[in-house]
């Protein structure tokens, strides 16, 4: 099935950034460098986004994360950035680790997105209960979907 091939293209896209890191070894400038801040813009006034009052998934990280909050330009709200305090082993950036859900940045990214959704809308939209049954191509889409909450370029 040709479409399965293109799902792999997307899988490579999800993990492609990690591959670049390994090839070039230029960690500081790599898109998924462990030092890089994960960041979102929250459509709330800076006074509504306070480091010690962040919603639960993020709040629970405590001092395992550093947090940076600043006003976004114009009417765009507030920029909220986080990163893990502890340096992470390089292996966590690999495609294998990310497909296995073993990169701790995935959980942090998810928590960051959830914090944004909670601050903006008061809830985190949940997916519908699945109606799917497994096929080889479908399993792959399922795997990518499971990881997609914590993956991405943010």
């Amino acid at each position, binding site marked *: 099935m040709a479409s399965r091939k293109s799902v792999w293209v997307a899988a490579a896209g999800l993990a492609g950034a990690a591959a670049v890191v390994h090839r070039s070894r230029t960690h500081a400038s790599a898109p998924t460098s462990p030092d890089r801040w994960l960041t979102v813009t929250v459509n709330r006034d800076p006074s509504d986004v306070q480091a010690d009052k962040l919603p639960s998934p993020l709040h629970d990280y405590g001092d395992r994360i550093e947090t940076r909050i600043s006003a976004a330009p114009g009417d765009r709200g507030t920029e909220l950035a986080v990163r893990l305090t502890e340096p992470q082993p390089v292996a966590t950036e690999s495609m294998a680790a990310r497909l296995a859900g073993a990169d701790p940045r995935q959980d942090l990214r998810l928590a960051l997105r959830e914090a944004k959704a909670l601050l903006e809308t008061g809830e985190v939209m949940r*997916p519908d209960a699945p109606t799917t049954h497994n096929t080889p191509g479908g399993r792959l889409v399922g795997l990518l979907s499971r990881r997609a909450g914590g993956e*991405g370029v943010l």
Partner: protein
Amino acid sequence: MKALCWEGVNKLAVEEVPDPVLHNDQDVIVRVIAGTTCGSDLHLIGGYIPFMRSGDVIGHEFIGEVVEVGTGVRRHAVGDRVVVSSFVGCGRCWYCTHDMWSLCDNTNTNPGIGQALFGADTAGIFGYSHAMGGLRGSHAEYVRVPYADYGAFKVPEGVDDTSALFVSDSVPTGWMGADLAGVKPGDVVAVWGCGAVGQMAARAAILLGAERVISIDRIPERLEMTERHIGSEVIDYTATDVGAELRERTGGRGPDVCIEAVGMEAHSDNTLVHAYDQVKQRLRLQTDRPTAVRQAIHACRKGGTVFVLGVFAGAVDKFPLGAVINKGLTVRGAQQHGQRYIPMLLDRLAAGDLSTAHLATHSVSLDEAPRAYDMFKQKTDGCVRAVIRPNG
């Protein structure tokens, strides 16, 4: 309950699936009165958007009755007859508050896929693949509607179900194309595609004051319908050279605004180019066939605007970038910002300056839906839109 499920490329089946439930406080459950086939579904069904799983419920353009309401819902009550925007918007992110609802930050629960494909995730849609959030579609007896205070709209008494149905997706899509392309009095507007989306774009252009509107397709009954119900001039692109015809009708200038409402499976008269595009699409070297977009860019007058309403998923080949820069064109596209236009469109339907009922050429039960999709895909029996009634 029964639902229409995708079961593989070009395979649809009616299946028994669990009833939807409220997952969030701001959800409602809607009992679907009617839904419709949309050109976008054809891209899914044909496997051009490879993020479907077997068993996924499809359908995104619908009207229904609210039967259950979450504790956080303020604007709806059980019994409301509502038309629902195909895109889900949270109503409070920066994009929603700036009326760019299909760009909502908070409604695609699989954001990593969009971020890998497009550089950013976009809003969730009902029944439109796991890349767009994997929400269940509306070709089912019931559907869950998240953020219902923002996406569901009460239908005025005087507007019947079938007319209101298209305000969910195809009417706001067409309207958005004309609106965001900046159509204004005195403009000549050309529209590629005489499906529901193209027809609604043409109608919107007329209502926004365009001097002339010219619609392009090859299917005789669609051309005839567009002339009669929309009040647009038409061109059969198999009978003439579209570029030359448009130049002749516009004093050699070309249309001020060109709206493309065809999408990634465009048909081409030029056998060689079509074969080339198809082979590349099959091999996934290009994901989309941009025939009408290329033609629109060539035909557009210097300094004009091309608006892409047709759905494209990935990369295209032979994109005439030279024409864009040398002719100083504005090229724009968007998925529909339904919530921005639906209240105004319902008012216009009620007032009678917009009519949609003629689009519903067929009406079928859920069991007949696979056959209806086949007819819609092949464009047989004069099918423009098949209306699917899951609850009879």
